[in-house]
């Protein structure tokens, strides 16, 4: 399978910090679902922002479909932790935003938006203002707004972290179904071990110093049985990883 995203020797640091990410090397295959997991502050979100093109001053090389990443573009769809929905627009207009910016003719635009809103189950809420929706519904709008533009790559920055456990489970299922349908290559940043195992084909483990510790392939059929022994093995392994990282972090502080 062709790799869509390729990172080689990627390092990054803000001016006032020494270094956040160091020598990141990995590639992501087309249509696959990859999670980035690591302890708090290890730079997972920063890494996703680099891939999205929001932080152009990195060293090394990030390529998407062979092209170097320099700035944000419609090819890298991004779902933000705070969702970043536009509160002055309705559900329909939020989902329509990207197509409008890309000058898609009105007729085509409306059909695509309607279909996408239907796919995320919000048809009845099309004309509602964003403020009247629940957390889970807002999440669906954010996902729909990004997916409707058919980005080659879908980047999700802890999108479910603000939701209650039940809604999160439902949305994880939905995301999996969506991914099966549209097959967009997806990178998810998460701090949840369960979420990473349940959804991903591969998990990139970032250690606390901002380098790749290991890349774990999850060889389990989807949809996955959370109570299976294989699933639990993966869980144990990742839990161990995070615990060790936390311990060495504490030692570093003391």
């Amino acid at each position, binding site marked *: 399978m062709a790799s869509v995203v390729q990172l080689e020797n990627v390092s990054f640091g803000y001016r006032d910090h020494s270094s956040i990410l160091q020598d990141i090397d990995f590639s992501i295959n087309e249509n696959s679902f990859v999670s980035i997991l690591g302890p708090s502050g290890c730079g997972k979100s920063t890494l996703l922002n680099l891939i*999205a*093109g*929001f932080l152009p001053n990195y060293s090394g090389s990030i390529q998407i479909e062979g092209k170097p990443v320099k*700035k*944000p*573009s*419609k090819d*890298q*769809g*991004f779902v*933000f*932790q*705070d969702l*970043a929905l*536009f*509160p*002055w627009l309705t559900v329909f207009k939020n989902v329509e*935003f*990207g197509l*409008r*910016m*890309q000058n898609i003719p009105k007729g085509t635009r409306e059909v695509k938006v309607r279909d996408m809103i239907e796919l995320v189950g919000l048809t009845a809420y099309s004309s509602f*203002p*964003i*403020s*009247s929706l629940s957390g889970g519904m807002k999440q669906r709008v954010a996902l729909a*707004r*990004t997916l409707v*533009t058919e980005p080659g790559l879908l980047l999700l920055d802890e999108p479910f972290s603000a939701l209650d456990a039940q809604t999160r489970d439902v949305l994880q299922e939905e995301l999996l179904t969506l991914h099966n349908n549209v097959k967009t290559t997806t990178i998810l940043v998460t701090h949840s071990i369960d979420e990473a195992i349940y959804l991903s084909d591969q998990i990139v483990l970032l250690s606390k110093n901002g380098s790749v510790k290991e890349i774990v392939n999850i060889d389990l059929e989807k949809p996955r049985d959370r109570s299976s022994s294989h699933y639990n093995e993966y869980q144990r392994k990742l839990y161990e990883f995070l615990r060790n990282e936390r311990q060495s972090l504490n030692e570093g502080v003391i």
Partner: protein
Amino acid sequence: MSKWKMSWLAIPFVLIIWSAVSAQYPSYLFPGPIDVLNEAVSQWQKGELTNHIIVSLKRLIIGFVLSAIMAFIVGIFAGASRHFREFLTPLVTYFQATPPMAWAPLLIILLGLGDAPMIAVIIIASFFPILINVIQGMNHIPASHIRAAQSLGAKSWKLAIYVYLPEIIPAAISGIYVGFAISWRSLVAAEMIGGNSGIGYFIAFNGQIGNASSVLLGILLIGFLALFMDYLLLKPLHKRFASWAVRS
């Protein structure tokens, strides 16, 4: 039938007090509501007052629209550039502390007695309150909104029109409310000291010739016109562009 509101009592209350107090004085000193109403009818028939009202409203609208456009443009640049903002800060503080009215004599010397100095007073009065609010609005745009728009394909002017502008409008409208109140009051005051037309001039002139009914009529009109502009322009503006900010 709609629900009973205490606000329905407010104007009758004032009218009753006014009638009671004015009854203690001869009507050429302190006219009552009926005297002022009679004066309004006779002024309406003469047509002169209508012209003064039109002149004042025309000045207000021209000055205010010019001021709002300039404040939006300067505010967006100031919001985007820290250096420009630093440059503007002392100027804003200085002009905010100066009553716009104080400029009127100089502006009349410079620009004559017509519309120009009055429009200038309105601009001085309303530009800074709107500007400050536009800058504040710019500073409060969440970075993720800009990034989201960029990753959805919004660039340069589209980003400005479809994201920056709607983001700053609620704050800007607060500035417009404040600016409107200050500029209307300043306009009337400026017309009183150095105009030859407008509602302020009407009050000042009638004061000098001792026509108390006309003076009171003018004062009442200032308030009514402000209410009228509020309902006709400001409230619909707020409803159309800023109601989302209240909801979210």
